């Protein structure tokens, strides 16, 4: 009987130990799983942030590089051209005195070529760095952009906005919207063979919407993405938007053409004064 009691006790203890172990296993599986998932999520978050940062830096360095090129064009070539123009003016006086018809006409031609080159350089620098955007804001910049385009093409570009005074946004956001608008309009001119482009800028408490509509041939963005046709343009739009939490949507209106809508959450310009226009201006060294 003694051994029977002992056996019972032993069995009881063994069973309880076994059950505790089972319970522990269940708890452990749950805990471990949860832990691993949290870790996984953290890692993917970090990765996402990192990618976004990479993209951001890439775009930022693109902008600063543009600035640098514009700066060099303006400061070096621009100055050279001005000096050339001055020299040519002096030379032209000498030539006028000598009274040779042929020499004089060559002189005139050189002078006008230099004038034209100066204009071109100025235009290129302005295209590279949207100074109007930084100084006067999105509305003015878009208007200026349209104005320039309408001069060289016979196109009708209409621009509407739902406010008179478009509140200034953060510098990055304005630049993003401006570059997107530029790419969309350029695409419409390049691919759509359209006669009319509508640009609509809307803002409410939360979102800014930019809509560019053309009346051209239209396109299917899904097909373009699948078929590797997408150039840098559409991809660039998406990566720019990814940085500012924006979205883009393409539509094909019933009456033909295509329409793109980009939406970005508003981000009003902070109080501190905007970055200097040419942060990379080099110290001029006078020898």
């Amino acid at each position, binding site marked *: 009987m003694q051994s*029977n009691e002992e*056996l*019972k006790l032993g*069995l*009881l203890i*063994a*069973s309880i130990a*076994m*059950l505790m*172990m*089972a*319970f522990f*296993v*269940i708890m452990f*599986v*749950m805990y*471990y*799983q*949860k832990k*691993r*998932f949290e870790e*996984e999520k953290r890692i993917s978050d970090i990765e996402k942030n990192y990618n976004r940062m990479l993209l951001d830096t890439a775009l930022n360095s693109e902008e600063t590089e543009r600035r640098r090129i514009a700066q060099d064009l303006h400061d070096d070539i621009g100055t050279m051209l001005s000096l050339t123009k001055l020299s040519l003016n002096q030379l032209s006086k000498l030539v006028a005195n000598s009274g040779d018809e042929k020499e004089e006409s060559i002189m005139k031609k050189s002078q006008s070529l230099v004038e034209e080159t100066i204009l071109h350089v100025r235009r290129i620098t302005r295209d590279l760095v949207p100074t109007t955007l930084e100084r006067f804001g999105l509305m003015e910049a878009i208007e200026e952009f349209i104005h320039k385009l309408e001069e060289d093409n016979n196109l009708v570009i209409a621009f509407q906005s739902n406010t008179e005074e478009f509140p200034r946004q953060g510098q990055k956001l304005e630049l993003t919207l401006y570059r997107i608008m530029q790419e969309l309009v350029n695409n419409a001119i390049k691919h759509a063979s359209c006669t009319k482009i509508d640009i609509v800028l809307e803002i409410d408490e939360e979102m800014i919407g930019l809509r560019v509509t053309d009346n051209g041939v239209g396109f299917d963005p899904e097909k373009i993405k699948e078929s590797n046709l997408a150039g840098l343009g559409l991809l660039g739009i998406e990566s720019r938007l990814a940085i500012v939490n924006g979205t883009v949507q393409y539509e094909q209106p019933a009456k033909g053409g295509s329409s793109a809508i980009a939406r970005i959450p508003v981000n009003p310009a902070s109080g501190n004064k905007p970055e200097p226009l040419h942060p990379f201006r080099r110290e001029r060294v006078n020898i």
Partner: protein
Amino acid sequence: MLENYCSYIIRQPVISAPVFLNLLPILLIWRKRAYNDKMFFILFVYLILKFGVDLVMFDLASQRKNSVLYYNLNIPVRYVLTSWMFYYKLDYNAQRKWLMLSWILFVAFSAWDIIHTNPSMGDLYNHKMVLYSTTLESLLMLFWIMLYFYNTMRALKIPNLLTYPFFWICSGFLLYYSSLLFIAPVLHYASKWDQWMDIGSLDYIPYAFETVSLLLFSIGIAQYTGSSYAK
């Protein structure tokens, strides 16, 4: 007859509870139409069979007849059905092959065990409970459960275990077989019809945990939504 039942229930509430609690997961599977899923279908068959066997044993026990034969015959069937559920949940083909092999070996072994413990098969009155099969069954099942848990932890495919039905079902089995593992070897001696070796309340532990496992099954089945399994 009803009197017999009632008095048995009152005398042995711990043993009778799981018999009727079987109905809860069965009804839940029926209500949720979970039997469309293969794994749940096996669970469904398993539960119905278990309910049937439990009822027969309950009936015999309440009439004080020897019900051990049914218990013995049920063991291989029970093993095949429970491990069959794992067949659908194991990711690797090699593991499935081993599982199927274990069915054949286990059925053969338990047949041998029944004959070995009961040399005179005709004598139903003195039919004895098998000696090794239940223990082996528990060991095998614990192995498959651990293997499944290990696979789950490695693969990291299930975001939230608490809403994953099979995790509950698995936990139910784990608790049940853990409680059975050490008791099973003595059940043979405890349930000899003539010479009781009284292991007292120890006998109740597996029944109590059968109840717990049935409750866990029910929780698991309640988590079932057709779509979560369709993935």
